């Protein structure tokens, strides 16, 4: 008889658990470079692939589209056609690979390409394993790579479930993400409620379509998986995981009458928190990542199925291969050196844990009911309810950091420290994007276009549009598009024609910063003085040029500027530089604040400055930048006329406002 602290297998022998799947979110520059990276990572002991696509691929543009050019190959691999996918998976056997694709707006297209790849390579479609992220709700809320309106996006998700259930049974058609919600400021209860409401929205729409009988529907419920965040408050995070498991059990049993236990299981992967990683004393992030990993591995009953970790330098730049390897080593030490996997659940019976879990569940249930009452997740998106709630949580978080109520070591406490040797290497501890990498994608794209059968491609696109209009499942037509060498931009363009493009609510209306006091009063007085001297309030256009969808920073700047008395124009993400400049000129703005986190700040700054000059407005309108911008790039930005650059270490909103006000007071002369 085994002791209670031992794990035993079916044969009654003492055993240990198999570790979770180790993943590294990777991909950059070109299909060829990314293929080499994947093969190296797999040789290193990585057990699954997590593919990062570049923003044009995620937003449905070809690499040579003007809005795409600055972003090609920056945050992931560019995929324009099936030819690129052949290169990406060269010498990687598909049937043995668990492939996770972080793809949303164009999820159906990437799955179609993957299936088409299997067909052309003579591998079995049914043997494909993996996940398309395909959670459009969190894209509207936090990540920004949506394309179509909610109604049509939910249809795409449902059709992928319907296709995959029988034909690609080991494929997770979508992966409900609470990860990005926490990055956007969600509290644990919001993370629980919004993610579960999203899953409910997907399942309700599948159910309403009526393509599945109850047995098939239960299997579809069993295919729903989750992608969760894990923050620095790791005890609470561990409890959140247990709450997820229990709530999902409740929902699948009571709401959907799922009888088989295995289809009610909460299956989830994790990426730990990036929001709390700091640019100041970046070496501290290594400890944060370790602690956050514990939150999702310690409790056996709520342990993640797959884990991917950020790198210590994510607040500085994109990670280098070495940085990712260092994070992978953390997982290997945790799984293989420690005794973690030898025990049953450690927290079973703990009254503290049980009570915390219960409290989170109660709060989350109330929120789920509220969203239900509104008419479900689609309505809560369209009305802006969820977005507004997240922006409010983020505003509160930053207010607490500013007031010192929330300690962030190295940022608002113990800021003084010895210089870090990690950033003193020749590359500054940063990833250097290969600026020539885009060229390869562009030539491959031209080649594909030149060599394909244009009639077949055209016909495939027409069939896709017909399916979209006629309500048929669009995946078979998409697979034919893939085989016909239709490109990513053409596929998305055809569906944009049918469904239109969506612009969600920005969520900043009515937000208040909880900051008052002398500093704010002084700033308001300065703004008033400026107003009296010029007969009008200072005006700021806050813009997100290009395809990068990380809007937290821009939202906080817009809210702060209004808080001190600016008139602010903020129109959300994905604007062409031409649109930002046109609005700044027409609105008579004094300053443009551009926010870029994708590494494309130099190219986008050049475009903005050129357009401003063409309007004759370079002198009248000042330009400041914010985002993940390496210190080494600041001189280059200043050289083309950017007056101030804000990076994650500038977390004090009132500091930023003071610097912008000083710039305006000095009539555009940068105050040192």
């Amino acid at each position, binding site marked *: 008889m085994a002791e209670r602290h031992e794990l035993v297998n079916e044969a009654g022998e003492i055993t240990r658990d198999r570790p979770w799947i180790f993943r590294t979110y990777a991909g950059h520059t070109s299909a060829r470079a990314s293929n080499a990276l994947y093969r190296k990572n797999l040789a290193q002991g990585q057990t699954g692939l997590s593919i990062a696509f570049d923003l044009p691929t995620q937003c449905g543009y070809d690499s040579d589209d003007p809005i795409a050019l600055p972003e090609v190959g920056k945050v992931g691999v560019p995929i324009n056609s099936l030819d690129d996918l052949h290169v990406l998976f060269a010498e990687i056997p598909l049937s043995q690979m668990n492939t996770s694709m972080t793809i949303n707006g164009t999820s159906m297209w990437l799955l179609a390409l993957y299936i088409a790849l299997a067909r052309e390579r003579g591998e079995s479609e049914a043997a494909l394993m993996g996940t398309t992220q395909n959670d459009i709700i969190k894209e509207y809320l936090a990540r920004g790579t949506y394309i179509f309106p909610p109604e049509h996006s939910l249809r795409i998700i449902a059709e992928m479930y319907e296709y995959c259930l029988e034909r690609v049974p080991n494929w997770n058609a979508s992966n409900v993400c609470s990860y990005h919600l926490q990055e956007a400021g969600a509290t644990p209860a919001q993370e629980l409620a919004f993610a579960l409401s999203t899953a409910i929205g997907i399942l309700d729409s599948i159910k309403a379509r009526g393509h599945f009988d109850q047995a098939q529907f239960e299997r579809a419920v069993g295919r729903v998986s989750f992608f969760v965040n894990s923050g620095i408050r790791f005890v609470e995070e561990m409890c959140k995981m247990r709450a997820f498991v229990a709530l999902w059990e409740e929902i699948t049993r009571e709401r959907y009458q799922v009888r088989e236990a295995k289809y009610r299981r909460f299956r989830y992967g994790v990426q730990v928190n990036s929001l709390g990683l700091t640019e100041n004393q970046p070496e501290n992030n290594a400890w944060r990542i370790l602690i956050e990993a514990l939150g999702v591995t310690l409790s056996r009953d709520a342990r993640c199925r797959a884990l991917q970790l950020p790198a210590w330098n994510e607040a500085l730049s994109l990670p280098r291969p070495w940085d990712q390897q260092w994070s992978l080593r953390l997982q290997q030490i945790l799984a293989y050196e420690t005794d973690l996997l030898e025990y049953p659940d450690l927290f079973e019976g703990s009254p503290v844990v049980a009570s915390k879990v219960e409290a989170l569940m109660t709060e989350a249930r109330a929120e789920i009911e509220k969203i239900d009452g509104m008419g479900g997740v689609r309505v809560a998106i369209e009305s802006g309810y969820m977005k507004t709630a997240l922006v409010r949580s983020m505003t509160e978080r930053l207010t607490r950091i500013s007031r010192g109520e929330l300690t962030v070591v190295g940022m608002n406490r113990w800021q003084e420290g010895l210089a870090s040797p990690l950033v003193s290497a020749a590359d500054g501890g940063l990833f250097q994007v290969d600026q020539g990498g885009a060229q390869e994608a562009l030539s491959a794209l031209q080649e594909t276009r030149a060599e394909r059968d244009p009639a077949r491609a055209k016909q495939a696109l027409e069939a896709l549009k017909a399916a979209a209009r006629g309500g048929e499942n669009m995946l078979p037509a998409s697979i034919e598009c893939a085989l016909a060498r239709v490109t990513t931009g053409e596929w998305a363009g055809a569906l944009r024609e049918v469904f239109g493009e969506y612009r969600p609510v920005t969520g900043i209306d009515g937000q208040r910063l909880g900051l008052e006091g002398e500093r704010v009063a002084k700033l308001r007085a300065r703004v008033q003085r400026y*107003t009296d001297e010029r*007969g009008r309030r200072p005006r700021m256009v806050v813009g997100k040029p290009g395809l990068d969808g990380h809007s937290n920073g821009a939202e906080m700047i817009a809210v702060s500027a209004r808080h001190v008395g*600016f008139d*602010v*124009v903020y129109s959300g993400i994905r604007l*062409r530089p031409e649109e930002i400049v046109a609005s700044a000129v*027409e*609105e*008579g703005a004094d300053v443009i604040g551009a926010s870029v986190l994708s590494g494309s700040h130099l190219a986008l700054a050049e475009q903005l400055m050129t357009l401003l000059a063409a309007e004759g407005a370079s002198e009248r309108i000042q330009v400041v930048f914010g985002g993940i911008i390496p210190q080494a790039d600041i001189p280059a930005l200043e050289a083309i006329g950017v007056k101030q650059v804000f990076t994650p270490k500038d977390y004090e909103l009132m500091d930023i406002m003071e610097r912008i006000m000083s710039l305006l007071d000095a009539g555009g002369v940068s105050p040192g």
Partner: protein
Amino acid sequence: MAPPGVDHSHVETLVARAALELHRGSVAELINLFEDQRASARPSRAVALAALGRHPARRRAVFIGVTGAPGAGKSTLVGELATRLLGAQPSWRVAVLAVDPSSHLSGGALLGDRTRVRISSDERRFFFRSQASQTALGGLSPASYDVCRLLEGLFDCVFVETVGVGQSEIDIRFLADTVYLVMTPLGGDEIQFLKAGVMEIPDHVVLNKSDAKQAARRAYYALKGSLGLARPEDADKMSVFRTSCVSGEGLAELSEHVASRVAMAGDEGAQPPKLDREAYFFERWAVREWGQRGARYLDRELGGGRQLLARVSGYDAAQQALEAGFVAHLTATRTS
């Protein structure tokens, strides 16, 4: 502070570039001038209007008021209408002036979501400008009328979109040639508006977001019924449009209606007399700038806004006259 001298040639260059090619930067700078409510900006404004009045490319805009509660879809609707007008009338220039609420706390404002108006930034016959209400009541900004005096000479059609709080949007009644009230079928708005007395403002009503068919039909008839109660004397002259910016339903009909209002501008008498509009906003300005005493002075000593405006040449001159007269009056009453 003494008014600085007016840089005539600079203002005239701005006007010429604005009138000829609708040069964006010049239009924007001129609007800045008309938004500046200090007395020091008055002479430049007079120069600009005189130059514009002489300019051969001068237009004579029709003002289309769009009012209705937040969330009724005003911005998107205005964007759709502007797109259609620009498409149907290759020579027309169209502007949107969108008013948004200012914060009572900081005075700052979040200005209109320009991207709801989905017109390419390459379209040079279109101009979009936001204004902060500056916590003024009435649904417009204190500078709205001044800016409209400028836009009138530069565009063929100007949409003025109000804050949309409902209660006190009477200003738009005086500013616009035609006012459309935008409502949604699901909001139960028709009852709210009846209560709030807002039904007295519009010339026509738009039931937007009518993609919810059943609800739209129900709301349509409910509205027709309540209009008969609220406006017994002219309910039959009011059109009720059903539109959906999702399906495109009803947009062609509504934009043709708007276009016909603009085209009618040539017919004398089709528009409210200019003097009524000027006098209304002049009196509003007088109260804002000089308080109830100033308004009484205007009434008793100068015979009211209408008479003063008829006597002196133009709005700016009337402001000058009231200011000079009232300051002298104050000084006199103080010394006597």
